[in-house]
């Protein structure tokens, strides 16, 4: 198990490296340099500019720049944000935490809904429930995430029951922890709901498809031949057998959810990595851009690693291979 995990982690590191190199290469193509923004920022003295230039090797060839950036990352800084005049990591950490605050509950909720429902749906065939399922998921799939986010905002505005965007209310700042937690939760409801609606349909469909495929196998027929009850067959036999493709799907769903969260965060003014990235782009704050992308990639890879671990735990065949 340790060896297996170590191999996967090593693989993940390599990927991260690859992504960072790719991003830096794309930098080369970017017109203008990092410093165009900073020159506009009057608060920074020319000496600081010169110092930063040297520290990050901004007038040197790409390999040097990359190396300096790596060093800065190892120090925990991840480069420098010229628009905010501070190391990039300082801006990214709180934002990353906020993104996780939305993404993780949304992920859990989506799967908690999709798995039982999808397994049940696999058992319906050709009747009205099946058609409703197919139709419903089709429509949900076709709804653009942008629209879902906007509708969530609309609900907040129209009903007045939910806070309109943002993560915290000013009024809650001085109250005790419990009240602050409640306030936070209240702010989370709509964004998480938007995320879940945007991603549950595709998971539902895949769960149904995987379980259906398993149901067609010979060993399911054999189980039926032994007279096992339908519930036992679906949840005790089909679901575990379908675990493998589903766990792989888990990795994909993390990717999917992260992408959608960017949009939801921007629309609902949730202070996550999405709005930060957008601002950074508009401000040409390129180190911040790279940092944000790297963070999101890290989350994705983390999700995949989790999936690998789950696969190891749930599929005895993987255990044998490893």
């Amino acid at each position, binding site marked *: 198990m340790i060896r297996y995990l170590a191999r996967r982690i090593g693989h993940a590191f390599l990927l991260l490296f690859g992504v960072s190199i790719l991003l830096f290469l*794309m930098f080369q193509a970017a017109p203008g340099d990092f410093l165009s923004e900073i020159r506009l920022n009057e608060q920074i003295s020319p000496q600081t500019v010169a110092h930063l230039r040297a520290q990050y090797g901004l007038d040197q060839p790409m390999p040097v720049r990359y190396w300096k950036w790596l060093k800065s990352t190892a120090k925990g800084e991840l480069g420098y944000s010229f628009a905010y005049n501070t190391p990039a990591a300082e801006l990214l950490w709180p934002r990353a935490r906020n993104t996780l605050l939305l993404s993780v509950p949304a992920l859990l909720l989506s799967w908690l809904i999709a798995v039982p429902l999808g397994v049940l749906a696999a058992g319906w065939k050709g009747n009205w429930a099946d058609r409703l399922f197919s139709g419903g998921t089709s429509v949900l799939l076709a709804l653009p*995430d942008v629209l879902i986010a906007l*509708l969530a905002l609309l609900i907040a505005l129209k009903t007045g029951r939910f806070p*309109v965007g943002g993560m915290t209310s000013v009024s809650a700042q001085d109250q005790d922890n419990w009240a602050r937690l409640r306030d936070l939760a209240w702010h989370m409801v709509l964004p998480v709901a938007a995320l879940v609606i945007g991603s549950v349909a595709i998971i539902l469909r895949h769960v149904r498809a995987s379980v259906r495929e398993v*149901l067609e196998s010979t060993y399911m027929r054999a189980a039926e031949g032994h007279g096992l009850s339908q519930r036992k067959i679906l949840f005790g036999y089909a679901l575990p057998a379908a675990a493998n493709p589903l766990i792989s799907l888990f990795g994909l769903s993390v990717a999917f959810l992260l992408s959608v969260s960017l*949009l939801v965060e921007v629309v609902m003014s949730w202070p996550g990595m999405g709005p930060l990235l957008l601002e950074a*782009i508009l401000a040409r704050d390129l180190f911040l851009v790279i940092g944000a992308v790297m963070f999101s*990639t890290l989350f994705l890879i983390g999700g995949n690693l989790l999936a690998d671990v789950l696969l190891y735990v749930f599929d005895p065949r993987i255990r044998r291979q490893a």
Partner: protein
Amino acid sequence: MKLPFADRSADRSHKKAGVRGSARFKLTWAIWFLVAIHAVVVLAGFFAPYNYETQDREHPYAAPTKIHFVDCAGKFHLRPFVYATRNDDGSVIGYNEDCSQPAKVGIFVHGDEYSIVGVHSTRHLFGVQSPASIFLMGTDGFGRDQFSRLLYGGQVSLFAGFVAASFSALVGLLLGGIAGMYGGRVDDIAMRLAEIFITVPWFYFLIAVRAFLPLQISPVVAFLLVIAVIGVVGWGRPARLVRGVVLSARERNFVLAARGFGASNSYLLRRHLMPLTFRVMLTQMAVLIPQFILAEVILSFLGLGVGEPFPSWGNMLARAQQYNVLVSYWWMLLPGLAPVPVFLAYHSLAETLQERIKSNI
């Protein structure tokens, strides 16, 4: 709840006459629908009553025009008509219909001039005489007809998605094909590269790549740029797919057998490998295109895509982000619904194609 193979007595699924028939029906419906939508969008000039830039300064944020068959006095008319509207009480929002100014809805009327592929015309499918206006989906803050802009915007969104998907597919076909055909080192490198592209979360990657390119550009350049960006970012999955197909096909015994008959590489490619990959690629396209349309919509929504004055479903939606717009002018959300039937059609297409491939392995 029934398991798929037990107790046939109550099963309805295979009693439907010709299960294959219904799949074919879905296929033809999807294809015809898509063709129709694309045709309408290309001929936007004709189908839309106004140009995308035409502004009606007196009617900003007007609600969708109601089409009447019965007039204020209660009389029924066969031909539909609309009333001119005006801002009676001076309030910022809200227009009242002016019963004294009915205007019949005409077909093939003259209106703003437009050109499609160099052909100029002023004929529109339908319209009304001024001072009345027919805003089927209301107007935006500049008094521009949303319906017309929707159609023009479709040009951008639909075709950006289509072209970008073709681009990705082509790159994927090329790289994946080479990787699969030659194997070894080439394969390793190509697939590692593809993996890097796949590992970064899609939207993050998209806007980051967009970030590295100039921001203030003309709509036309923006359009091309958007296509290029989306296409470049998305080549990873098609490439992996094609590589998988080619790899497995290469080792198939029937390819070996053909080699045994003295077949040349080009024959193998032409007769065996290409048909296989082609089908897979087609299905991939049906999955990619809606994704890429969505990508364009999002880019434009965030201000990173096609900009004013040319409409795109994305930048039309961007207005709705303002709270007052969102709350008061519901029709500004309609561009968000526009992709839905298109996506449904593409998904249908993808599903039927995938089933065909599965049953035909």
